[in-house]
């Protein structure tokens, strides 16, 4: 495992990219006879925007699910902050500081936007049931302190006006933003975004791209995202992993990936003669 601060560099636009924060080594994931991911290795560096792309069914979401602990791979190791991560439950992974959003929104529909985002602060709030029942001392202080942080994120993502609205009543684009807010509220060391722009129109995509860049810039968050819109991916990301049929076929900067023959074949198809 490489040293965390080793070979850090600065990008053209002046962002500092740190050492490796998460490394996947030879991950293989099978569902019965189906091999969803086959022997894939890649790493995520601190502060970078890392994209995972590939055609439908390539195993991108499965990869994200492995990172967030939803699936445990049959083979391979996950290294997080320099240590090998044992198989764990999704909530344990979340408590280690990995937050995510979902391809089809997974918000708590019956709760208000504020409550949804506050739920994201679960890692930062530790007062016991008894203290909460009385609502004095630690429980109250904690609630107020975390509310302040949450309000900053709500301001940042421009969802102040819907703070007290139940999420079930919101339109799709706003729900996506609320979900991002909930993931951000956890102050994650890695933020996983599963198709943050699926089903959006051009303006909404531009908004979302701006938020992702701002989040990365402002909070210094490490972001790993899956996205189908190539324009977005090439513009946003620092490095790209390309998957096809569960295998890794390319890895590198957007320019390198764009000129990779295997990637071009996978996306455009290849003539068999």
């Amino acid at each position, binding site marked *: 495992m490489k040293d965390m601060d080793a070979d850090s560099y600065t990008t053209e636009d002046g962002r500092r990219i740190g050492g490796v924060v998460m490394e996947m080594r030879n991950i293989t994931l099978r569902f019965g006879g189906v091999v969803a991911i086959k022997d894939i290795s890649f790493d995520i560096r601190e502060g970078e925007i890392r994209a995972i792309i590939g055609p439908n069914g390539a195993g991108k979401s499965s990869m994200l699910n492995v990172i*967030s602990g*939803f699936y445990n791979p049959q083979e391979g190791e996950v290294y997080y902050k320099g240590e090998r991560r044992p198989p764990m*439950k*999704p*909530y344990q992974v*979340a*408590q280690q500081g990995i*937050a*995510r959003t*979902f391809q089809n929104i*997974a*918000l*708590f*529909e*019956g*709760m208000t936007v504020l*409550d949804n985002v*506050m*739920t*994201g*602060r*679960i*890692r930062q*709030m530790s*007062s016991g*049931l008894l203290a*909460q*029942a*009385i*609502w004095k001392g630690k*429980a*109250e202080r904690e*609630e*107020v302190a975390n*509310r*302040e942080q949450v*309000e900053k994120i709500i301001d940042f993502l421009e969802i102040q006006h819907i703070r007290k609205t139940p999420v079930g009543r919101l339109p799709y684009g706003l729900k996506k933003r609320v979900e991002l807010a*909930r993931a951000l509220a*956890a102050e994650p060391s890695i933020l996983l975004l599963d198709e943050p722009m699926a089903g959006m129109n051009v303006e909404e995509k531009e908004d979302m791209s701006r938020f992702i860049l701002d989040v990365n810039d402002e909070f210094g968050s490490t972001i790993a995202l899956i996205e189908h819109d190539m324009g977005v991916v090439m513009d946003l990301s620092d490095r790209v992993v390309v998957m096809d049929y569960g295998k890794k076929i390319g890895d590198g900067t957007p320019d390198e990936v764009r000129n990779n023959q295997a990637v071009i074949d996978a996306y455009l198809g290849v003539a068999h003669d």
Partner: protein
Amino acid sequence: MFYREAGDFKTSYTEDSQTFPIKFDRYRYYAVLLVAFAVVPFVINDYWVNAVFLPFLIYSIAAIGLNILVGYCGQVSLGTGGFMAVGAYACYKLMVAFPEVSIFIHIILSGGITAAVCLLFGLPSLRIKGFYLAVATLAAQFFLVWTFNRVGWFYNYSASGQINAPERTVFGVPITGAETAPWAAYLFCLVFVVASAIIARNLTRGMAGRKWMAIRDMDIAAEIIGVNPLKAKLSAFAVSGFFVGISGALFFAVYLGAVEVGEAFGINKSFLVLFMVIIGGLGSIFGSFAGAAFLVLLPVLLKNVLVGGLGWPTDLAAHLEFMIVGGLIIMFLVLEPHGLAQLWRVAKEKLRLWPFPY
């Protein structure tokens, strides 16, 4: 017109997250408390306490408890009657074994014991959901009632199989037994109701409540965010059991005085409390009160109108009462599936603008 939040500005997050953020609501709440504590005890008589106030107060606690489990955490339970019986029998055993300890403490301890039992029967919820869980809790209902019927130790081997509340006092005033004054029983229960409501409200507006609601709304997402489903579900079962146990203890010790388990805590009770929660409004503390009031008051009201007002024979009125209550329940669920609490919310929205159209 009557109801405004305009001009009611908040300058701190504490103010914004309080139970009644709107001034008008807050003052109304204080007024209700004042009337309940300072006026009602002086004007009520035996009939009012036994027919209306005690059942209303005690069922309110049970409904709050069940609402935490079903309305907030989304785990359906049909074992409420059985858990109330646990509270009642725990209270009986404690009262008999430690006569020198205050009944106040006994009732809280009964809540604690019920919480432990409820937690035990909540374990299947980690594996099963929805209707299947409801059936599993139904097993708790039958098992607990059977146990209290058959195991002599629980009723101290009394010949009748009943348990009778011995006389106990608080500050020298009898609370249980034949000597109890109506106002004393009323006030004693009222204290528990107010405390339960405040505790339930505090829990549900804080992190505990958010975890429960997260599990209710989407358990997989909740887990990925960092909610430990085991802890969240079991804590809901325990807290719910605590309130249900207290209500069971009060039901036995203060209200009935003598209990035969199959009759007082049968499956009917489970359904009654579940109906209160559904009619009142899932996921609302106010709804628990509204539901309890609806199902306690409606039969009393109908009886008074039919027998007292129209002079019908009692048995005819009793049967008609069932039909009318049943019909009203169906009507309510069709017209407003989110219960009385939602009806109240809609009324408030309307009152904000009244008499202007918008």
